[in-house]
């Protein structure tokens, strides 16, 4: 077992996850490639969405990968920072909107 989590070389070796289940890995990676191909959204828009989601799920591999990918697709620091703020706003908003449940319960049980 490694002595720490999140080793950077795990990202590079990601394809090796196929060893335990080649069929499922193939299905996953084929699907993954199809998702990021240009479609109704551009590759750059998809990369920025991925970057925002990476911050929401707090995946360090994805943050590195989609920072580079976003830059490679033409995004600059200001655009990427705005994408991260979108993730932050939704995450924060999701906490805050639960406050309505708190408030409703407080109104019910309080005087």
């Amino acid at each position, binding site marked *: 077992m490694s002595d720490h989590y999140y080793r950077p070389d795990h990202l590079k070796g990601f394809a090796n996850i196929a060893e335990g289940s080649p069929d499922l890995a193939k299905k996953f990676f084929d699907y993954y490639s199809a998702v990021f191909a*240009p479609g109704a959204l*551009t*590759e*750059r828009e998809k990369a920025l969405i991925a970057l925002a989601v990476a911050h929401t799920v707090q995946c360090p591999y994805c943050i590195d990968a989609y920072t*580079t990918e976003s*830059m*490679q*697709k*033409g995004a*600059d*620091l*200001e*655009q990427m920072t705005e994408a991260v703020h979108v993730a932050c706003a939704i995450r924060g908003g999701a906490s805050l909107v639960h406050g309505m449940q708190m408030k409703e319960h407080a109104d019910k049980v309080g005087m």
Partner: protein
Amino acid sequence: MTTTLASRRVPLASPREQLARLAGGPEFDDVLARAGHPPLSPASLEIFQINLGKFCNMTCRHCHVDAGPDRTDAMMSRATVEACLRALDRTDAATVDITGGAPELHPEFRYLVEESRRRGKHVIDRCNLSVLLLPRSAGVAEWLAERGVEIVASLPHYRKRNTDAQRGEGAFEKSIESLRLLNRAGYGKGDPKRVLSLMTNPAGAFLAQPQQSAEPEWKAALQREHGVTFDRLLALNNMPISRFLEWLIDSDNLDGYMQKLVEAFNPATIAGIMCRNTISVSWDGRLYDCDFNQMLDLDSGVTVEHFDPEAWRARRVITRRHCFGCTAGCGSSCGGAAAS
């Protein structure tokens, strides 16, 4: 803004030192062979590229030429310009590609443009945009427009941050002002005699964006934000040489960038890379496969005075590890990406 390697007299100013820093790791010819390709050989000559010298009003951080305001040491003489024209007459090259430095600042620039146009050649001026705002450049845009010269202008990004990061504080505002000036001269409006191409290089250690998908976005953004138009976008990878190499080393990105270039090797780029259809002449009249080999002193051993079209066609293209820059991803040619 940085300063030239030459003015700082640092070891990296030497092409030999640059090649030494690039050594280690897969060799270009080996990767080419593993992909089933023979060594690079010349295709028919289409582009006669003339580098008038290293003198430039700008000092961009990614410059592969190590050009700058102090580089008056490297300027092509009138005699060499004449030799270029004699050599040009012995080829079927349809395009004369004039680069530098800032070619517009060279005293023989207008003469070379006139003589090339007189021969019926398509002429490209590789322009840094800000040069057009200098008092000595007054009227240059209109002069080029009257002669149907295509302008290939450097602009790293359609937004300020990445442009200024690569080309110096204030470069973006000047670039926009120059683009407006070019638009007023008739450039960038779909007229085949006033073609304005924008050339983008990544502002960092990553590959160029695919030019085809980026072009509509660039056009919309520049029109919307600044009211300027252009005809086509060209996207090139940065070559790991000269000042971009210095930045890669200083920022600890060299190994990662080289690995990225090697891993992104794309055999589909081979047919379109510039070394196969270009002849590159340096300010001192030596002949090279491309502008990058020129900067690394990987010369063919021939001068433009002794140019022999048959021998040139029979040569073998010189390759080193920097060549991975032209075959990575969509690849790089003088006309932008070498593959879609």
